[in-house]
């Protein structure tokens, strides 16, 4: 991983663009799926892709040039100053688990809906309106 740190120093802008671009692209793609796709499963896929993009954004922001993973493994006990930000990682950890919970619940609702309305098209699920 030292290799990456060196690389990052060298191509900081490029890597920034690549990582941010990927994260924002994921958010946007997920959003597109949620807004345009008619199939419920696709919508849930969109939500989870959107979440993934946000998680990537979190981790990317926590990265510090030249930092190592925030683990004081043997031989690395006093490297606190050279470590990446642990807080966003901890938050993402929480967010991933919560995201999974939401996805699971969403899918169970999809299954229920399918049993109840016999359709997986969101446009046909409008018995409640106005």
């Amino acid at each position, binding site marked *: 991983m030292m290799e990456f740190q060196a690389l990052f120093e060298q191509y900081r802008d490029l890597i920034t663009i690549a990582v941010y671009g990927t994260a924002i692209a994921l958010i946007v793609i997920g959003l597109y799926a949620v807004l345009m796709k008619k199939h419920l499963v696709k919508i849930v896929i969109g939500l989870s892709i959107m979440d993934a993009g946000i998680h990537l*954004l979190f981790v990317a922001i926590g990265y510090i040039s030249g930092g190592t993973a925030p683990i004081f493994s043997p031989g690395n006990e006093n490297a606190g100053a050279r470590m990446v930000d642990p807080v966003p990682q901890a*938050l993402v950890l929480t967010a991933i688990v919560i995201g999974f919970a939401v996805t699971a619940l969403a899918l169970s609702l999809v299954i*229920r809906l399918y049993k109840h309305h016999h359709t997986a098209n969101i446009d046909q699920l409008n018995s409640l309106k*106005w």
Partner: protein
Amino acid sequence: MVITPVHYIVAPLIAAFAIPLLIKIHKDAARIVPGIVLFYNVIVSLFLMNHIAEHGMISETLAGWQAPWGINLVVTPFTGFLATMVSILGFIIWLYGYRFKRTLKGGEVKYYEILQMMMIAGSIGIIITGDIFNMFVFIEIVGISAFSLTAFYRSRDGAEAGFKYLLIGGFASAFLLLGILIIYTQTGTLNMAQIAERMPDVPQQMKIVALIFFLVALGIEAEMFPLNGWAPDAYSQAPSPTSATFAAVVSVAGVYALIRVVFTMFDVEGVNNYLMVMGFVTMLIAEIAAISQKDLKRMLAYSSVGQVGLVLIAFGIGSNLAVFGALFLMLNHGVIKSLLFMAGSYFIYNTDDKKIKSLNGIYKKLPIVSFFFALGALAIIGFPPFSGFWSKFYILISAADEKYVFLIIGILLVTIIELTYYLRVVGRIYFAKQEGEPASHKPSINALVAMSSLALFIIVIGVYPDLIMPHIQSAADALLDKSNYIQQILSIKN
């Protein structure tokens, strides 16, 4: 201090984890234990309110790390007031639902009661936490419980409403995360007091983008138009005690989150006007939509959204008096809308149909429930001498202080719309020609106790508002005194 704020969260969690075991010992445990826990929360509330009245605000450190470093739970007069209100209403709703859910099989009761209890506990968590990410976690707790409860009845279109709720709720959590992320990068902290302290140094552009993400995310929780598409569906499809909880507890927590973020964390100009305008639009559209509803619970749902709009208007005006009015209205809304949902639920239970037109002459079947419904309707419109009047009156006074003539006229015109549809329903209940069979489901004693306590509150506070006003006043002061909040939290040492 024997009782600390963390008891609010820990007691329901212990109960939730233990209920699957306890249910093996006694099959009614799932029903009773949440009641005990919620009652315990009421005791906690009263104890804490008493404590802060004597010793000032509490900022409890968790895991032994003091405020900016660890998560802290804050009980100020403001959060304490809301937490007390939510826990008392939560307990009353449990009391109401205790036998109502008797028809369900054992397993379902377990799920229902756990989710319901955790929804209330999560709402209290949103209110008392002092940490923005912790607030996110609690919002998710409330959200997950709410999605599941919305889809609880399989005979209704609950799953559809639940899915919509979840979809919009998913957006809310995504945007909330983005907002938290931006704020974290700029301030390097997650504690709301410290964020507020460091906010002046944040670049304006960043601040505003973060604020917008917060506004949208929490606007979804606070049912602000046009982010509230989920609300009528969810309210109308959920089991009735849950609908009452949505109105009395969850929306209060949502509004609290929005207000805490806007008033304490950020210091951006123009947000007050934003709240006022969006609150007005919310109220207007919701009440307009309510007027031609055919489904009773859906009508009540739109009415709830409208009330929240009025609360937002009052917060948007932003003066001490307006905040006072807003808090008073939140309290009234919680109480009155719970009563309406509870009474409405018995109508539905007796007619097997949620349509308003099937309420014709139900007065003869359910005289007491009808009386409560009529009382609630008059109170929520704001007729004196019921409690709803005072909150509306103070909001109007505060608007007048700021010379918002058109706002006042707008609010009152919307009230007339509100009055129209509520009185149509009341008229039907009492005076339409009755059809069909006599009552098959009389209200059970616990439901009556729950409803009468709410009705008593409405009347007593309506006649003698001084009983509650000092508490609300100190709550409003506490909310507006931002520097004191920051200072207190960051200076409390172990």
